[in-house]
């Protein structure tokens, strides 16, 4: 390797480029824009204002933040539910008024006042909710009108009762304490706001009700069609917003113990600004409580900071307007381009130097030299099957294969012309295996490991494993389960090819050539699944050796077959059996003579091998070229290889014309025949194996002769 190539290797294999894409792919990066905003705001005012971070200042800020935050959170819930509540300022004022009336005219306790405040908030919210939810009026317009109704009601009340309220002889120390005192350094109102925020977040992210709100906001029609009570959900969002404004009004009354005609005036605009600056989409479905929190912080700190700087009339509007515009434009651009950016930066190729392969040229005389044996395979289900990645046969010689339509189809022996849908799974079944009881175990793409009983009933076996500590992508999920096999003790060993790409994006994984494949084991007795091996370059076929002591594992993009010992003195050790093959290995299965069959899904090419040593070139390629002009592994020619336990190649078969079996993903020997599957093929092929044991079946080789 030249120095330049070493440096390239250092650069691309040591710098974790892939993390950027993985982070961007996270849902929480939606919060990056508002979070950046918040940081900028805090940094700006922290620099401009001396004492911005002083304890007294922070405490007073949190006291005001409490009320504002609660209003914003209520509004956020409505917005997520696809509505809008402009009447929050009026509810706020009315609730503050009822609080003060209860205490200073009614002479009641703060608890009763709280009930009065929340009650009036809930009542007003229910009114809004009834109009918008049940009468299905337009939210914007309706709450605009209720805003004015509430405001004029409040003005009438304050005019009528204002004097009584102001001249009240009552002093209520416990009520004053709520507004003035602190617990553990934070004002009581701030604690209430914190508790309220956490509660709201749990409600929105963890409860059925919250999910319903999000569903209704995201797609009202779909929510209705899946049976969610849309009207009730909408109604409830407004009640929640009303209660929030009510609580905020109560805290406001406790803080200032007075209300005036201007109380809560214009609150709807600042609350709306906060919710939007936080990144909540108006129209619903996309938003969260933390976003509301960040927006509330950014807006309150800005207006507060500007007041403290003594800024002139209009400055605050200017800055908030600018902030809103910037936040919205950024958010819109982000939403629009996130996908593009993601697809640009997600692919982060590694330097991977493949060693020269033995030639597979027909007639080259090497053990890998391809012949044309598969071209004459006898077709089964020609043109009626799509994508039989793997095939398997039962004791009655019936043939099973998964299809692209999410089914396992059964063809009946002996001529395999009749077929039926054996079982509907819903995902693309890939690797198949059969356990002692005759149950089919299958790896379903993007779903997990499933069992299908003889009666065709589907059971979920494993859909997740333990999450790695430092992985950014959620590798608890089984993203690309590919092939499985069953040990003598019933444990199911299976591969998960990559944690970075979905099954249909396998080509991107090959271009990236990053080892993220895994070997996992599922124990049906305990129901537990754990990860056994990591860092495989597209972990693919897995096959239990004839002695039951080890597994043969195909690593596709490394063109390597490994042996992993699961029993005996070498248990837990990994050794390489075959390396530097000229083809990309796929499934491996047992052969009747004590050796193994292996499918080649494609052949290595010098051009792609060279590309693998030039990660920068591959990155440019994925960014600048349309997908159909990329360099891919050659999957137009595949083959079948037979090898023994030592890794010696015994035979190689191919289809040189590519008409019948260009790409082979699986092979299964059964009673003297070899059945051939291909994930992109429109048929299952079979060829007679001269000299093979005509009675040998794979099932018996695993589980012994039938009684």
């Amino acid at each position, binding site marked *: 390797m030249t120095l330049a190539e070493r440096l390239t290797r250092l650069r691309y294999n040591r710098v974790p480029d892939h993390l950027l894409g993985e982070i961007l792919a996270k849902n929480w990066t939606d919060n990056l824009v508002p979070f950046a905003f918040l940081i900028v705001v805090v940094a700006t005012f922290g620099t401009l204002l001396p004492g911005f971070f002083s304890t007294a200042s922070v405490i007073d800020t949190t006291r005001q933040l409490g009320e504002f935050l609660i209003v914003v959170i209520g509004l956020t819930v409505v917005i997520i539910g696809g509505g809008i509540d402009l009447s929050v300022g009026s509810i706020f004022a009315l609730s503050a008024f009822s609080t003060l009336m209860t205490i200073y005219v009614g002479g009641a306790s703060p608890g009763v006042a709280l009930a009065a405040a929340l009650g009036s908030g809930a009542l007003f919210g229910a009114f809004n909710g009834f109009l918008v939810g049940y*009468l299905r009026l337009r939210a914007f317009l309706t709450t605009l009108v209720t805003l004015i109704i509430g405001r004029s009601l409040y003005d009438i009340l304050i005019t009528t009762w204002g004097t009584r309220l102001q001249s009240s002889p009552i002093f209520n120390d416990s009520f004053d304490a709520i507004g003035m005192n602190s617990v553990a350094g934070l004002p009581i109102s701030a604690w209430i706001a914190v508790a309220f925020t956490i509660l709201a977040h749990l409600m929105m992210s963890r409860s059925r009700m919250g999910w319903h709100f999000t569903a209704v906001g995201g797609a009202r029609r779909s929510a209705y069609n899946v049976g969610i009570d849309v009207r009730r959900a909408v109604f409830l969002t407004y009640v929640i917003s009303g209660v929030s404004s009510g609580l905020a009004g109560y805290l406001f009354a406790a803080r200032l113990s007075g209300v005036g005609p201007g109380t809560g005036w214009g609150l709807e605009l600042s609350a709306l600004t906060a919710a939007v600056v936080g990144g909540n989409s108006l129209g619903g479905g996309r938003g969260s409580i933390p976003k509301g929190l960040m927006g509330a912080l950014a807006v309150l700190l800005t207006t507060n900071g500007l007041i403290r700087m003594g800024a002139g*009339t*209009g400055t605050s509007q*200017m800055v908030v*307007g600018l902030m809103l*515009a910037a936040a919205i434009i950024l958010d819109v651009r982000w939403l629009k381009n996130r996908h593009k950016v993601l697809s640009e930066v997600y692919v982060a190729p590694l330097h991977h130097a493949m060693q020269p392969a033995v030639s597979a040229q027909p007639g080259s005389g090497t053990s890998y030299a391809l012949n044309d044996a598969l071209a004459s395979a006898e077709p089964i289900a020609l043109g009626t099957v799509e994508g039989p990645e793997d095939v398997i046969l039962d004791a009655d010689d019936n043939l099973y294969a998964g299809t692209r339509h999410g089914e396992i189809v059964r063809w009946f022996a002996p001529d395999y012309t009749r077929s039926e849908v054996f079982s509907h799974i819903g995902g693309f079944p890939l690797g198949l295996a059969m356990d002692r009881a005759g149950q089919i175990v299958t790896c379903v793409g993007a779903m997990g490991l499933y069992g299908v009983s003889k009666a065709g009933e589907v059971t979920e076996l494993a859909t997740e494993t333990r999450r790695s500590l430092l992985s950014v992508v959620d590798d608890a999920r089984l993203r690309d389960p590919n092939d499985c096999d069953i040990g003598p003790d019933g444990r199911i060993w299976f591969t998960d090819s990559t944690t970075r790409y979905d099954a249909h994006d396998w080509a991107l994984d090959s271009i990236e050539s990053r080892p993220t494949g895994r070997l996992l084991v599922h124990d049906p007795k305990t129901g537990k699944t754990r990860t056994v091996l990591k860092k495989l370059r597209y972990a693919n076929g897995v096959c239990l050796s004839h002695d039951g002591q080890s597994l043969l594992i195909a690593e596709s993009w490394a063109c390597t077959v490994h042996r992993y010992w699961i029993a005996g003195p070498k248990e837990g050790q990994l050794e390489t059996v075959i390396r530097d093959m000229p083809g990309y290995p796929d499934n491996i299965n047992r052969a009747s003579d004590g050796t193994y069959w292996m499918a080649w899904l494609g052949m290595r090419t010098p051009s792609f091998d060279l590309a693998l040593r030039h990660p920068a070139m591959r990155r440019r390629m994925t960014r600048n070229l349309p997908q159909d002009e990329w360099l891919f592994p050659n999957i137009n020619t595949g083959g079948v290889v037979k090898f023994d336990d030592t890794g010696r190649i015994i035979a190689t078969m191919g289809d040189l014309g590519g008409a019948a079996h260009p790409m082979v993903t699986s092979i299964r020997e059964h009673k003297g025949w070899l059945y051939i599957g291909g994930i992109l093929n429109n048929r299952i092929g079979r060829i007679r194996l001269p000299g093979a044991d005509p009675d040998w079946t794979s099932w018996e080789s695993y589980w012994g002769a039938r009684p």
Partner: protein
Amino acid sequence: MTTTQRLRPRATQEGIVLLMALLLFAGFTVTLDGFLSAANLLNIVRSVSVLGVLAAGMAIVVIGRGIDLSMISIMVVTVAIQLQVMHGGWSTGAAMALAVAIALGLGAMNGYMVAYAGVSALFATLASGAFIFGFVRSQILRQDSITLPDDATTLLALGSARVLGLPLDVLAFAFVVVLGWAALRWTRQGRFLYLMGDNFQAARTTGIPVRPLIVVSFMASAVLAWAAGLTSAISLQSVNTRIVNSTLLYDVILVVVIGGIGLSGGKGGMRNVVVGAFLIGVLLNGMTILNLPNIHQNLIRSVILLAAIILDGQLNPRDEQTSQQGDI
């Protein structure tokens, strides 16, 4: 269309509101002395003229499925700058040209944000309204209120001019309504605006230049905002920027919507603006004659508006199958 359908026209919001306004009108005529006098009728029209001009501008944007929350800001800002430069010695014509240019620029900015940056109109104009007012008020204007300069004789004369006994603001309202009606009815752009508001994707696919059209609609609303502000300033001989903090914007939206121009676009026209303004005008006038305090007027007005909206909701219900996501 069958005969029965023709005899029983579908109750539209416009029809309901017109009926309500007529009922109120009849009620006030019977109960209030002097309500029906020519002078009072002029008062009614006059009290909603500026509102009507603003509503006409809003209607144009709303028909194209937008909304312009920055109208009041633009109105205040353009007129305030116009008067301020006149105090600084500019001629009336030059100051007016400057104000119109600023209005067009601000409208284009709004339109650009909506059409090209892809921001929803609600947010774009909410933000721009706050920014425009905040920027001009804090950086350019010194105080809330600016008077018409004494030497602005042309404008002062306009304030007292009467054509057919009608003052400037009523004429302006009438002119804008006729012009708007003609533009929406007879120009290609006007028809395109309806098509765009009714089905944006279809309009776009058909090859209608939707983006420039959006920009033009916002520019129209901005210029009408300036016109409304100028007529108001001429009549009052001053402009008070504090009006930005009032409920005027909400009133404008309500006139548009209760008149029957749906916020989802593609529907209505200048006739609806007139009907909406008529209801508001009759209400305000009657209640003022009754010496009702402002706060009670607000309550009564908003409850009547709510009734109109509920009635419309009952007569033209939306359901879960047809309502669109993001349609608030």
